[in-house]
């Protein structure tokens, strides 16, 4: 027996509430972040991710007080992203109780910031989030988008992943924008391409609709961790059910 595959519920936070959208739009309220975090911890979540989803596009500040409150009650790793623009933002989030910080838009605008943050705080706390979409008009299959999926970058997602790891990213959070909120499953070819290209762990995100999708994300997509939001937020499945299902299908999980 060895390292378990991780299940990570994702809490998309805006204006202090957890919300869930479809293809990054049409937001629905899902509850209080601290209550939800505690519930997932009780159910056996391996880690929690908080994304301040409108931070970059609306130039909003960080969700420090929420992280402080969660960190004093929940003792599993916490990743926080959204609106991280400079090395000082990373420090503020770590000091509030985050264990890892996820960088997305800023990594594209200023890749040096990823390297500076990794040098200063260690690669173990630097996650680069990659929002990718399948494209027809480029010499590659998946393109990187920023600003909550609103801006195309012209970057090849697989090459971008390799570059980010070379600058010091310790983990990659790969979201398929085509799948996000659709409930038709992860984009496994995208995840597999990135997972095979880099040494660091990847978290698959976007599109989970049932528990078989989590199994496929690991087996077909090569994910080291699987992230999901709506199937857990609305009580369709508990984390425990997800783990039992994955274990039954031969995936090592923490029970």
């Amino acid at each position: 027996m060895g390292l378990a595959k991780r299940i990570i519920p994702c809490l998309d936070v805006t204006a202090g509430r957890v919300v869930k959208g479809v293809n990054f739009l049409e937001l629905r309220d899902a509850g209080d972040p601290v209550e939800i975090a505690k519930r997932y911890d009780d159910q056996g979540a391996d880690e929690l991710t908080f994304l301040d989803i409108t931070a970059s596009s609306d130039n909003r500040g960080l969700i420090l007080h929420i992280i402080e409150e969660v960190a004093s009650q929940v003792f599993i790793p916490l990743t926080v992203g959204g609106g991280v623009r400079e090395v000082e933002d990373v420090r503020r989030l770590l000091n509030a109780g985050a264990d890892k910080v996820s960088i997305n838009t800023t990594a594209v605008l200023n890749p040096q910031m990823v390297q500076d943050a990794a040098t200063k705080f260690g690669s173990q706390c630097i996650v680069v989030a990659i929002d990718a979409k399948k494209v027809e008009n480029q010499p590659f299959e998946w393109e990187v988008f920023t600003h909550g999926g609103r801006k195309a970058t012209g970057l090849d997602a697989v090459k971008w992943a390799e570059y980010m790891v070379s600058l010091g990213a310790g983990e990659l959070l790969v979201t398929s924008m085509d799948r996000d909120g659709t409930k038709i499953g992860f984009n496994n070819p995208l995840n597999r391409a990135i997972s095979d290209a880099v040494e660091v762990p990847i978290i698959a995100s976007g599109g989970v609709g049932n528990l078989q999708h989590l199994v496929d994300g690991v087996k077909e997509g090569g994910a080291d961790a699987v992230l999901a939001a709506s199937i857990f937020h609305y009580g369709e499945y508990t984390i425990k059910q997800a783990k039992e299902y994955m274990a039954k299908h031969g995936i090592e999980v923490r029970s």
Partner: protein
Amino acid sequence: MSKVDIAVVDYGMGNLRSVSKALEHVAPGKNVVVTSRPDEVASAERVVFPGQGAMPDCIRELIARGLRGAVLDAAKHKPFLGICIGLQMLFDHSEEGDATGLGLFKGNVKRFAAADMVDSLGKKLKVPHMGWNQVYQSHQVNSQPHVLWQNIADGARFYYVHSYYVQPDDESIISGLSHYPKRFTCAIAKDNLFAVQFHPEKSANAGLQLLSNFVNWSPS
């Protein structure tokens, strides 16, 4: 200066809030202090020595803040818990940046070797070793597991994130083992000292239990 029950050694490398919050959670009423003052480390009843980032930077900052002597003294004389790089720094030498450690234990800190990183099905294993792995409570010297493993199941999972691991010359100090994919030392114990590679402060109930055991530990 009020009495310091638990000093968390701060030498400016990374986030110590998680460690202090978890200690406060398992030891309500105790005075937990995150400190870079050698006198506070010296006066504390027990000392937690965490670490994140790269070992050469950690050693450099520790020395620059004048904490080397206080940490070594605590490691020899009072209940002492090393975490992650706080375990690695206790050894002679690390492959990471060819760093010289504090030299309290003979041995090396080695990187997971690229050639070894495949699982039993031939699939690639990632480095860093990140996530929840099983910890086996080694007890080579005594027939009893160490008191810091009390109420923790043998094989319980703890949260890891690291690319290097310790290889002690003296195997009798090994108090915990994990596999990735080969067996590596994840905990050592000697007298008043216990040190772990994983992060108890991020390891849910198993981790909180270990911290609680540490807070109540009276090494003989």
